[in-house]
């Protein structure tokens, strides 16, 4: 599949995976009971396109809440990008007073070998 576009719900984030521009974007909240199922399409998209595309993948993450199951899926997703060898950069947005989300970004940055930008915003 070339593109994924999903609207956000009370439990799942808005998702946009596009080739032109080469972007993977998650926004909103990620608290589904079955995170593995939800993230599977994005895993497949990364597998299909990270090897084939020559440009840099911009990964934009603006999450308000995510459950621990989603945190593992997000890690799996970023590890797949890392393993693909594709050029990529993570833009991790957090509200400037939300220290939990800042720490979460720092944790991923410490584990994943992909350039990370931690970006404070006034409100998501």
């Amino acid at each position: 599949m070339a593109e994924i576009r999903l609207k956000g719900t009370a439990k799942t984030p808005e998702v946009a995976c596009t080739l032109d521009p080469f972007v993977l974007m998650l926004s909103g909240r990620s608290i589904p009971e079955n995170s593995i199922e939800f993230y599977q399409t994005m895993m497949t998209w990364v597998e299909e396109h990270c090897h084939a595309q020559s440009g840099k993948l911009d990964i934009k993450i603006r999450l308000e809440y995510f459950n621990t199951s989603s945190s593992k899926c997000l890690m799996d997703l970023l590890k797949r990008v890392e393993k693909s060898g594709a050029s990529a950069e993570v833009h991790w947005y957090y509200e400037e007073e939300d220290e939990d989300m800042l720490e979460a970004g720092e944790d991923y940055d410490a584990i994943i070998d992909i350039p990370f930008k931690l970006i404070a915003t006034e409100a998501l």
Partner: protein
Amino acid sequence: MKWPTSALPDDGRVEFAFHGHVDEATSALLIEQMERRLANSPLHRKVMRVVIELVQNLHHHSPADHSHESRFLCVRRPNAWVMSTANVIASDKAQALRERIDRLSALNADELRAEHREHLSNGNRTAHGGGGVGLLEIHRKSSGEVHLEFLPSLNDSQLSVFTAEIHFEHG
């Protein structure tokens, strides 16, 4: 099923209480209701993160045959939010849960964070996909203010009462 008195502090006000079977729909409803209750409250995001883990844990550990009910309670004290859950747990699992919580409670913030990173980076997952990160996250968000009590229940089971507190000064 009765709450232990420690879950109902004298200086607190019950913001939300639930008693019944927790399935996926109930779990979503509880989270939605708590979000409404907490809107514009101090530390609402931090509290909601703990609420989400607690409520989804109740769902994951609820028997499919509705044989046991669960409870969720949120109390607001002058300087803290107190969230408690109660559910029936098999006696043979109670000891393992006690040991895990005691071990996490002995860790300081940096040690909890290091353990969290380790769990996050390894590929292990539990049946519900969390990889054992949930309890760690609750400990981190609650700055270690986590308590577990077991009360006698039916044969071969105990009532597990789990309480997490978030103090405003931790924000």
